[in-house]
């Protein structure tokens, strides 16, 4: 009798323990999934974004920094007369795949926004990498040449380098910095396309005519957290500032504030 009772009691305790473990496991999974979601939509971009900013700053710091004044764009006369610029920028030789060769500063994306650009749009090596995040389509024109210099970057997650592409305004400056100096682009327009519309990478986007301009094309996903469409941002080359002339004012301001 006594033995039977203790047996029943032991079984009750065992089943209580098992239930406790099972419930603990489920609660843990639930909390981790919630935390994953917080990380996915918000925290991860802060962490990886900061890592990418830091990596780009480090790269930029390896090039010498001096500064000069670049006059503001004159809307009435339609030029930036007086700007220390050269009409023909140097063409950058193709670098090794996956290697960062330039940095990009987009003041509209935030006063600390600086990311590096690596060769190739390989997802794991470049786009998901905490030290780069932005990739150059190797099939498109090299930086500085007449044609289309096309870049890809995530809209959300993995640092979301192109997360604020939809906030660009016409005329916004975009600075691409290399060892030789700054390529200054001006944002012109955005376009929404399907992932199959690869002609956004053409020398003249969506056209088959011969290029005369230097275009900067940025591709990213749309809508946010989806792969259904692509958001494309086009910018036009404005001027090249050689390194010996020093960084453009906006770049210097961003660097000192960060």
């Amino acid at each position: 009798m006594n033995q039977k009772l203790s047996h029943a009691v032991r079984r009750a305790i065992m089943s209580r323990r098992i239930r406790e473990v099972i419930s603990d496991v489920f609660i843990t999974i639930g909390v981790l999934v919630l935390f994953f979601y917080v990380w996915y939509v918000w925290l991860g971009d802060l962490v990886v974004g900061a890592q990418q900013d830091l990596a780009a700053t480090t790269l930029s710091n390896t090039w010498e920094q001096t500064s000069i004044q670049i006059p503001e764009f004159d809307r009435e006369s339609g030029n930036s007369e007086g700007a220390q610029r050269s009409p023909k920028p140097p063409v950058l030789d193709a670098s090794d795949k996956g290697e960062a060769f330039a940095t990009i500063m987009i003041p509209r994306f935030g006063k600390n926004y600086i990311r590096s650009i690596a060769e190739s749009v390989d997802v794991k090596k470049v786009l998901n990498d905490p030290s780069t995040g932005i990739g150059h389509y190797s099939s498109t024109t090299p930086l500085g040449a007449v044609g289309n210099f096309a870049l890809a970057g995530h809209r959300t997650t993995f640092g979301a380098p192109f997360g604020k592409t939809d906030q660009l305004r016409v005329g916004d400056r975009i600075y691409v910095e290399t060892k030789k100096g700054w390529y200054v682009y001006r944002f012109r327009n955005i376009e929404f396309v399907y992932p199959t519309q690869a002609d956004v990478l053409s020398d003249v986007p969506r056209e088959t005519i011969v290029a005369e301009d230097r275009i900067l094309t940025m591709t990213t996903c749309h809508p946010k957290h989806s792969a259904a469409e692509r958001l494309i941002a086009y910018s036009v080359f404005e001027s090249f500032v050689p390194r010996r002339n020093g960084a453009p004012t906006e770049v210097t301001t961003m660097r000192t504030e960060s």
Partner: protein
Amino acid sequence: MYTALWRVLPGPRWLKIIEAVVLVIVVLSVCVEWVFPWVAENFIQQESTVDQ
């Protein structure tokens, strides 16, 4: 599970609380550094390129 863990943690109650907090931080750091990026990379489709 957590009751057993609480029993295993050495020291008085205040020390156990500190140890528990440290454990939580360690687990979350491992998640953020390795587990979450791996899950996002392999199980969630994130495309930002156009077909070439």
